[in-house]
């Protein structure tokens, strides 16, 4: 059966047809071939499963603490256990899920292929980074049997110096996770600089790679500060040297400076990859080049740089000087500008497109709306006088969940669905995917919109017990959390099920224009059978075709009724 369909001329230059080489999932067998693999895709897959596990763990803590907040006073646990719930929820979600989520897991799997490279620059470093992540994750989870952790993920001194929980275990874990993050960043920086194929200039890079590049800069420059900070905290706890301990002349507020000097860039380590992913999603599913590519690319970089200059806005009421507050407030507003530009550009990309509301796009559009809310509520917190009232209340909790979860995690889920067929070779259940995407959107907003109101009314965060006037908001929020949790749980289930029950995925199911869609599905060990052709970025007009359009076109042609096309490798869904 030859390729009987009347192909546009330009499409013929792209690789088609069955692949002879075994794909990366089957090229070698046995647990050792995974444990000692140097293949970026396998490392990325292992990261992905670790992260999905951590997501379910962190999510369970979230549901537990939301359940506890159903009524004032004790619902299921006492205050000490509650404090451990929110601490572990935060620590697991930040350090184990969101920071490595897009860059280390999906970035590892997709970025080198998207770049047109056979692997990352330092495959061994890549594997080392994964094992550091595993060790760090193990230590963080080990805090539970070693007495828990009740400091909040921020580990503020002097509380973290005095508490009897397993702070040292946690800080050791965070220290290792920091190195894992640095290694990944370093690796990606070199890869993006050195492994671009012929014809792949800086402005031919997909925006996802620009975002990962910006992220990598921050990972390399900011994370060492985290390492030093937790090291100092450990030494202080263990050796009482008087850096942070006020009783020995130390300065507890200094810890906050150190901590946020890392952790504010870390917020952008979390969000910028999400922005990159969403640029891909919106462009691909709208069949339109991203509007204002250079503006979006530059805004990723400027966000990465500006993010180093705004840490003080976490400390407006900490006792920091007014001058510092003024400077940090002004700098904080500069972050709003590139963020706004991106949102406008994404919206403009939809104009005159041909929008397909696949699961990936539903997540992309969710991101757009949720990130807008997250960004706009950031304005309140940047305004000094308003921040004084809202600081450390549920308003802040809602705000950063809109950014970190509503944006980054939603982008992560979108990216997972977008590239799932590519690296697993299996299609997931599309209607179920769409339903869960809507479930995530609805559940998320139900959870966190009431928290803005609670916060503005003065409900402080990290409260086990609260004033009865907030109860109705807490209950709405808890119901939302369960909708959200169930949606994500079903998502993980049907994605896993697709390994066994999913249809075989075609090479380019969504008609993406970037290079990973030229690679076989799943990719072979070195990603491409022959060097990929770098063509015009985000050009969907005649170079790439959405798989289902192909089906329409082929089945519409009278001479091909009933023909089974070759490239798909199986029956197509309709």
């Amino acid at each position, binding site marked *: 059966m030859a390729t009987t369909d009347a192909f546009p001329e330009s499409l013929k230059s792209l690789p088609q047809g069955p692949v002879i080489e075994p794909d990366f999932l089957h090229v070698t067998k046995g647990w050792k071939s995974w444990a000692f693999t140097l293949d970026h895709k396998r490392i990325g897959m292992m990261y992905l499963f670790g992260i999905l596990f951590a997501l379910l763990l962190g999510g369970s803590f979230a549901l537990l603490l939301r359940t506890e907040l159903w009524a004032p006073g004790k619902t299921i646990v006492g205050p000490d256990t509650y404090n451990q719930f929110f601490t572990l929820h935060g620590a697991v979600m930040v350090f184990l899920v969101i920071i490595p989520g897009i860059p280390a897991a999906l970035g590892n799997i997709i970025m080198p292929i998207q770049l047109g490279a056979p692997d990352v620059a330092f495959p061994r470093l890549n594997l080392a980074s994964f094992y550091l992540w595993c060790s760090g994750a193990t230590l963080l989870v080990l805090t539970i049997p070693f007495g828990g952790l009740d400091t909040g993920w921020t580990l503020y001194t002097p509380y973290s110096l005095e508490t009897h929980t397993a702070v040292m275990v946690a800080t050791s874990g965070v220290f290792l996770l920091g190195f894992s993050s640095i290694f990944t960043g370093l690796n990606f920086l070199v890869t993006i600089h050195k492994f671009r194929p012929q014809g792949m200039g800086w402005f031919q890079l997909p925006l996802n790679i620009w975002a990962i590049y910006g992220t990598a800069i921050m990972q390399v420059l900011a994370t060492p500060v985290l390492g030093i900070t937790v090291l100092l905290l450990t030494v202080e706890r263990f050796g009482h040297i008087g850096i942070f301990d006020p*009783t020995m002349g130390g300065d507890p507020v200094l810890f906050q400076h150190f901590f946020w000097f890392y952790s504010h860039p870390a917020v952008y380590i979390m969000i910028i990859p999400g922005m990159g992913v969403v640029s891909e999603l919106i462009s691909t599913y709208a069949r*339109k080049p991203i509007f204002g590519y250079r503006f979006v690319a530059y805004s990723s970089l400027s966000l990465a740089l500006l993010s180093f200059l705004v840490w003080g806005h976490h400390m407006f009421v900490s006792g920091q000087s007014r001058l510092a507050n003024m400077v940090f407030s002004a700098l904080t507003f500069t972050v709003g500008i590139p963020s706004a530009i991106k949102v406008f550009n994404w919206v403009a990309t939809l104009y005159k497109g*041909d929008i397909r509301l696949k699961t990936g796009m539903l997540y992309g559009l969710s991101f757009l709306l949720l990130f807008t809310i997250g960004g706009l509520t950031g304005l309140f917190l940047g*305004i000094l*006088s308003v921040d*004084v*009232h809202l600081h450390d209340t549920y308003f802040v909790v809602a705000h950063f969940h809109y950014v970190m979860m509503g944006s980054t995690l939603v982008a992560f889920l979108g990216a997972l669905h977008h590239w799932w067929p590519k690296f697993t070779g299996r299609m997931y259940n599309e209607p179920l995917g769409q339903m869960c995407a809507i479930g995530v959107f609805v559940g998320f907003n139900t959870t966190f919109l009431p928290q803005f109101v609670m916060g503005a009314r*003065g409900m402080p965060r990290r409260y086990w*017990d609260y004033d009865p006037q907030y109860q109705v908001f807490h209950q709405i929020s808890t119901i939302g959390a369960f909708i959200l949790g169930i949606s994500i749980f079903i998502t993980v289930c049907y994605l896993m099920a697709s390994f066994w029950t999913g249809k075989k995925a075609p090479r380019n199911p969504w008609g993406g224009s970037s290079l990973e869609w030229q690679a076989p599905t799943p990719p072979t060990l070195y990603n491409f059978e022959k060097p990929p052709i770098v063509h015009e970025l985000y050009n969907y007009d005649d170079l790439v075709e959405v798989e289902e359009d192909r089906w329409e076109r082929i089945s519409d042609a009278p001479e091909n009724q009933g023909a089974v096309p070759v490239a798909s490798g199986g029956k197509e869904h309709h």
Partner: protein
Amino acid sequence: MKRVLPVLLALFIGTSAYAQTPGGSAIAPTPANAGESVPMADPTSGSNAATAGSAVPGSGSATNGNNQATSGSAGSDATGSAAAGSGAGSAAAAKGPPVKAWYDVLADKDIEEQGTFWMPKAVNQAADESDMMFYAVLALSVFFFLAIAIAVIYLTIKYRHRPGHKPEPSAAHNDVLEITWTVIPTIICVFLFWYGWHSYIRVVTPPNKAIEIDVLAQRWSWTFTHENGVTDSDLHIPAGVPVRLVMTSKDVLHSFYAPAMRVKQDVVPRRYTYAWFDATKPGTYRLTCAEYCGTSHAQMSCQKLDPVSGHCDRRAVVVVHKDLEEYERYLNDKITEQMNMAPVDLGKMLYDKKGCSSCHTVDGSARVGPSWKQPDWGKEIQIVGGSVKMDENYVRESILYPAKKARPGFPNSMPPFEGQLKDKELEGLIAYIKSLKQ
């Protein structure tokens, strides 16, 4: 749009009465104007009589060993006389707690925060501008969000994929458009920053003349020390007079947060931080800790803990008196009370006010720390690394230096109270603990 507008209007204009915190006392509801209808509040002599009323029978019963009942009768006596004077509040007697001084009655009142759907009304003169900023940014955000959401939904529907529909060519970028939507947010941000800074300076700069109150935060209580040495766990201030707080912490970070005042400031150990406000309306307002500080972070200076759910029914509050005179009357009456109280009553009051109740029960059950109801009084008890006789000396030492002879099975997290309690107060605490043994 037709549906959205009324909702928006409701958000901005609509006022809602905030759900009331169940107040600790059974005193009949009183209007915001403090002095007039609170029992015993009108003549100064009346309130003195009340303190004396609770003090005298209390002291007589200190050795009785059944403090609960005696206090109860003392309470009913005093309340009875108060009821005769004012005709209100007799219900308090039946429950049996010692009678409250007029200022504590004020502090026990339900929180009266009126406001919009979004925020309680600000009662700090300096906060009006920042509230205006909040609503302005709210309007701006709602506008931008709706603009973006409507654009996204409209474009998604209009350009959705359907058979025969193809993407149409359009510009991949447009410099004029992109510069426009760079410049507009920039201008907005500059304005927001400027006005935010402006109103912030107003919120944080106290006038030259202000009443100074020292604030000591510790796990898990507030102590407010006034100019004449009066200490209290509720913050009493006059309306219409600027108040400046000089704050420090005994142990970890805390944060002074009075939502209705729009004031929040972290309290840092071994350093002073400041806050000020100029309250506009007399009443009782919430006071919370906004910086995580451990187990009872949510219940700093809790004064009425529900034993079953652990919910705190009565937290620390800010009591705004109607004027300076009323505030001075509070200072005088309070200091008299502190001087004249029977040891057991003083101890009981300190138990509530100093945050002891966050960790210690008086019914024999363990919480964070051991219960104060100790059947082992006078006997040897287990401590870490040995045993000690449970007596006045042991209790005294354990209050001042809790870490020295810690009890096994409890976290060593109690702050030392050395230098914080007068001898009389220590005696009171010991007397109260003794009175609980059976």
